[in-house]
């Protein structure tokens, strides 16, 4: 037995290194990838993974979801939820796009504001997201209504705003300097799309913030036990506003990237992205009851979604079968993950 009957200091120095829970879901990701690899050789006669372009696309196509998921993970850790992410993506995409049009467009939204430096469009998109996040956070923190309702309201309203902004018209013909943000770069022979770089950068920063800073400790504390957090001197309201603001900012960033990638702003952009983002977080081990979750898990969860999409197309699975199987795999992945974690706990 490792405990003494009377614990001396020797007893609790440091902590024995235990594997973080993400290792288990990482195992699931690797497992899924290997299955696709094997099926690839059998049915397509080709390697799934040994294809640089595919690898970069796997992450590229989920990098927008991933950025949202990183933000929403933090919200969920506080025992909240953000349903507005997808709508905020749409609104931010519209606003950013409207400031990134070329003068070549006879129907530009702001004919006087064409051919501008992309920086304005980006800032505007981020600003929209931040603002939405602050409103969400303030509603949750100050009025004490459930986060579900506060962000549902924002979801509906922001979508309305996105449509109203140009009365439903998409914002097209964006400047190349702006769409550049959706482009790929060849780095050491590897096609690395900028959205992927941004996604991973955001993930690293937020991982550090959650793990090593006061901001992170407060976030977990509020989710784990808000009453105890308050008694421990944490200003819950103020902190929640920060967390929702960051989630909003990241949704704004996702919106800017979506517009840049699609070279247009569509009011319907980002519909249901919040669900994918929440799913990525939950697959990655974040608990909707709060207090538990890590960015590394969310990144893995996001990549699982990407691998599924790419893998199915690679195997030429029919679109409808794809959906049917995707649902099953999501469930199976989490079951396997839980099972492995339980086993590890017992061992």
């Amino acid at each position, binding site marked *: 037995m490792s405990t003494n009957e009377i614990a001396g200091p020797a007893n609790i120095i440091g902590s024995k290194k235990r594997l973080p829970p993400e290792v288990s879901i990482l195992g699931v990701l690797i497992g899924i990838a290997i299955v696709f690899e094997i099926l690839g050789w059998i049915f397509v006669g080709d390697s799934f993974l040994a294809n640089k*372009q595919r690898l970069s696309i796997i992450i590229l*196509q989920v990098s927008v979801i991933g950025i949202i998921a990183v933000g929403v993970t933090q919200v969920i850790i506080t025992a909240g939820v953000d349903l507005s992410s997808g709508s905020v993506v749409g609104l931010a995409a519209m606003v950013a796009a409207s400031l990134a049009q070329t003068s070549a467009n006879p129907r530009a939204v702001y004919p006087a504001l064409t051919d501008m430096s992309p920086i304005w469009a980006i800032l505007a998109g981020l600003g929209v997201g931040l603002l939405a996040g602050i409103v969400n956070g303030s509603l949750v923190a100050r009025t004490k209504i459930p986060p579900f309702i506060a962000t549902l309201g924002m979801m509906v309203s922001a979508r309305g705003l996105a449509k109203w902004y140009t*009365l*439903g018209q998409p914002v097209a013909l964006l400047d190349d300097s702006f769409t550049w943000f959706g482009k*790929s770069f060849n780095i050491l022979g590897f096609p690395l*799309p900028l959205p992927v770089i941004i996604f991973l950068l955001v993930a690293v920063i937020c991982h550090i913030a959650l793990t090593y800073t006061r901001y992170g400790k407060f976030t977990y504390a509020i989710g784990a036990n808000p009453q105890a957090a308050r008694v421990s001197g944490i200003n819950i309201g103020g902190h929640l506003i920060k967390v929702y603001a960051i989630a909003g900012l990241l949704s704004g960033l996702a919106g800017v990237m979506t517009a840049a*990638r699609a070279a*247009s702003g569509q009011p*319907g952009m980002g519909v249901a992205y919040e669900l994918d983002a929440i799913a990525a977080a939950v697959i990655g081990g974040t608990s909707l009851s709060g207090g538990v979750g890590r960015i590394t898990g969310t990144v893995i969860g996001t990549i699982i979604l990407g691998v599924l999409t790419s893998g199915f197309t690679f195997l030429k699975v029919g679109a409808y079968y794809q959906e049917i199987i995707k649902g099953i795999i999501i469930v199976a992945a989490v079951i396997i993950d839980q099972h492995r974690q339980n086993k590890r706990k017992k061992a």
Partner: protein
Amino acid sequence: GDIGVSMANSDTFLTVLRKGIEKSAADASQPVVIEIADDDVNKQLSQVQNFIAAKVDAIIVNPVDTSATGPMTKLATDAGIPIVYVNREPIDVGALGAKGAFVGSNEVDSGTLETKEVCRILKEAGKTEAGILIMVGDLANQAAVMRTKDIHDVNAGSDCGVKLNVIDEQTAGWDPVKAQDLMTNWIAAGHKPDAVISNNDNMAIGAINAMKAAGWDMKTVIVAGVDATQEALAYMKAGDLDVTVFQNAAAQGGGAVETAMKLAKGEAVTSPVWVPFELVTPANMDQYTTKN
């Protein structure tokens, strides 16, 4: 009184169409109330019922599901309110009665014009066989089904002259972002099409964005769409889009309002009212730049 309008959604083309309705109504000093059904059949049905409760003079519907128009027709007919379908051909187009009408374009033409032009370009490039990818719109919309059928029909008949091999055919629901993801996945799967034939321009643009992001030379692949939206024409001008088909939004919208007003006044109309499709290529695109 008012004319109630229920639009299926607010994508690029339907927004132009809606503007067409607004404009011709304004020109005729006819007040309109416009609702958008967000692709929800139930919601559209409820919107129609709310119009009936508000006792509008006529209802214009751009149906979400062209096979589910029966109940709307019946509700309007029972209430004695004229109903005009626009742009999407309702399944009961032959049974709309004296107070019902359809204003739209004949989808046999759109897909046929589009595909034949693709065939012509391929033939010109000296091909006898070509791999194509087909992007399908929302299958609840008769246009998506017809335009896709047109492609197969042209291929099966003798009109094409090039053998089109369909590599894959999937739906992207009229949506450019979904189309971009679909194309990206096709690229990742290693498909190398000679042509991408899309049911509308929005999806064609999504495909183009994906191909450009993957570093493809757009001269090596033919991309075709339908609608001739502003944005599509800009892509055509840049040499990315090769074929589109002009769908006359103003004429459809104007026709719908005109028909609705006539029916409201008790006048008789002929139905369907056909607005012709027109092929658009880089050669003639200049005449269309300000139309949609």
